């Protein structure tokens, strides 16, 4: 997904105004192709995420689109006030890139787990938030920003495999894809979504997976009417419950009076433990060791 991020920018820059790419001293073996080709538009500003976001705002104010790249927690929590005042309030064309979602930096420990970023950035409602599930959706998010601009946040995972390599995708809304035809609906986003399609329990005539590659402020009822026919609805995400996609889906169900069997598998931030481990170990531990079985059972 990171390679796709930089490939997309390089490709776009061939026929369009070249954006700027700032990094807080991260992106080794990812950002170099852009640095080499567009040295005047690439700045490693050093390890100063707060200043980097203000610098990005300053560059953007002069008519440019800017990507500001760091590990998720540093580009969001560390620089939150800069995101709020300098970028969001001024409606500038800055795309904040957060690398590593959920428990992808598992062995690195809590400082690197990105489980609250969605909650925090969701509070800045002028930001569009993208949580791509694969390389294709990463490309779509980057192109969307390059074409339309605006304060944007893209949380980048590590996956190489595309969801559409496993099942045929049906686009049902802006950055929302549906896999399968079943009436048991599973809703997910980000890097964990592919786990659903990879599971042997995913029978596309029984289940449908809805993947939100953009997390909308408010879920639009126009393209989710079919939820009315759902037998059950489950949400799977490796972030805390507060400010998550599940909270938006819950609002949608309540406002549309859809009384369906509903289950929401997310991270209880109050109980997160300190010991590290692999991404999958940590997902299992924090979502429940049988979370995948829970997802498919009635």
């Amino acid at each position: 997904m990171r390679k796709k991020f930089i490939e997309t920018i390089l490709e776009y820059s061939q026929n369009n105004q070249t954006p700027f790419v700032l990094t807080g001293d991260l992106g080794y073996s990812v950002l170099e192709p852009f640095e080499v080709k567009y040295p005047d538009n690439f700045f490693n500003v050093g390890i100063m995420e707060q200043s980097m976001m203000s610098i990005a705002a300053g560059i953007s104010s002069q008519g440019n689109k800017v990507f500001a790249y760091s590990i998720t927690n540093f580009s969001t929590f560390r620089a939150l006030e800069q995101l709020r005042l300098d970028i969001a309030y001024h409606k500038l064309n800055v795309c904040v890139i957060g690398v590593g979602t959920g428990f992808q930096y598992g062995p690195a420990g809590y400082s690197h787990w990105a489980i609250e970023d969605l909650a925090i950035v969701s509070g800045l409602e002028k930001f569009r938030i993208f949580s791509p599930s694969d390389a294709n959706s990463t490309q779509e998010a980057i192109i969307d920003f390059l074409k339309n601009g605006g304060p944007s946040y893209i949380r980048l995972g590590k996956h190489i495999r595309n969801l559409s390599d496993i099942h045929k995708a049906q686009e049902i809304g802006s950055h929302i894809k549906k896999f399968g035809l079943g009436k048991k609906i599973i809703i997910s986003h980000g890097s964990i979504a592919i786990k659903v399609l990879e599971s042997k329990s995913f029978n596309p005539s029984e289940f449908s997976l809805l993947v939100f590659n953009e997390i909308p402020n408010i879920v639009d009822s126009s393209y989710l009417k079919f939820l009315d026919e759902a037998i059950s609805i489950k949400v799977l995400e490796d972030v805390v419950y507060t400010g998550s996609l599940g909270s938006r889906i819950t609002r949608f169900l309540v406002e549309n009076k859809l009384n369906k069997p509903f289950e929401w598998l997310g991270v209880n931030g109050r109980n997160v433990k300190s010991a590290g481990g692999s991404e999958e170990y940590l997902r299992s531990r924090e979502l429940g060791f049988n979370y995948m079985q829970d997802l498919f059972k009635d």
Partner: protein
Amino acid sequence: MISNANSSHIGSCLSVADLLSVVQSLVQKNNNELIFSKGHAAAAMYASLSYEKVISEDSLNTFGSDGSELIGHVNHAVEGISFSTGSLGHGLPLGVGVAIASKSKHVYVIVSDGELNEGTTWESLAIASQLKLNNLTLIIDANGIQSFGETKEILNLDPLIDKFLDFGWNCVDIDGHSISLLFEALEKRSEIKPMAVIARTIKGKGIKEMEGKLEWHYKSPDKEKLKIFIKEIGNNA
């Protein structure tokens, strides 16, 4: 303005007024950029824009009133203001960004000396020097007083000039109420270095009761005081 709105920061407005008038004239004449990082001295900024005829004098009467864009910290919705500030430590990195993207412009950033407490200011000093941003000038309104006391007693950064020089900037330390010295300092340019001007000022400058007094960071003159202060300024003009 401040008395009508019963708002704070008149002391800061009076310390920055002289240097703001000089910078504003350079900015408006040459289509340069000013980032006013000490956003709490907003009344002075709006007044300087009115003097330069960027905004109307009448609009100043709306300062601090319901529905007015002229709010208590500078607002980018007002003509002539690039960035809303109020959170300290944002102005210099914003200025670095503008200086990177618009080499043809000269970028002036005005900060308070209290704002030098902020780490982002020092981060930005380092990157501006690293990038040889010679189209960037930082002006420090060094009135020696911040929100809760004297700057030297809270976080003593003296000798300040040495720190800017060590960070790879050119720097001068001048009387911030001397118009001629300000013009001279702000016209200095380097081939490879950004410029810092430490402008030594007096909080509440021009009104004896306010000069050097922390309390005028917060107080607003009532109608009676206002008459006395205006008379004092008139007598000194």
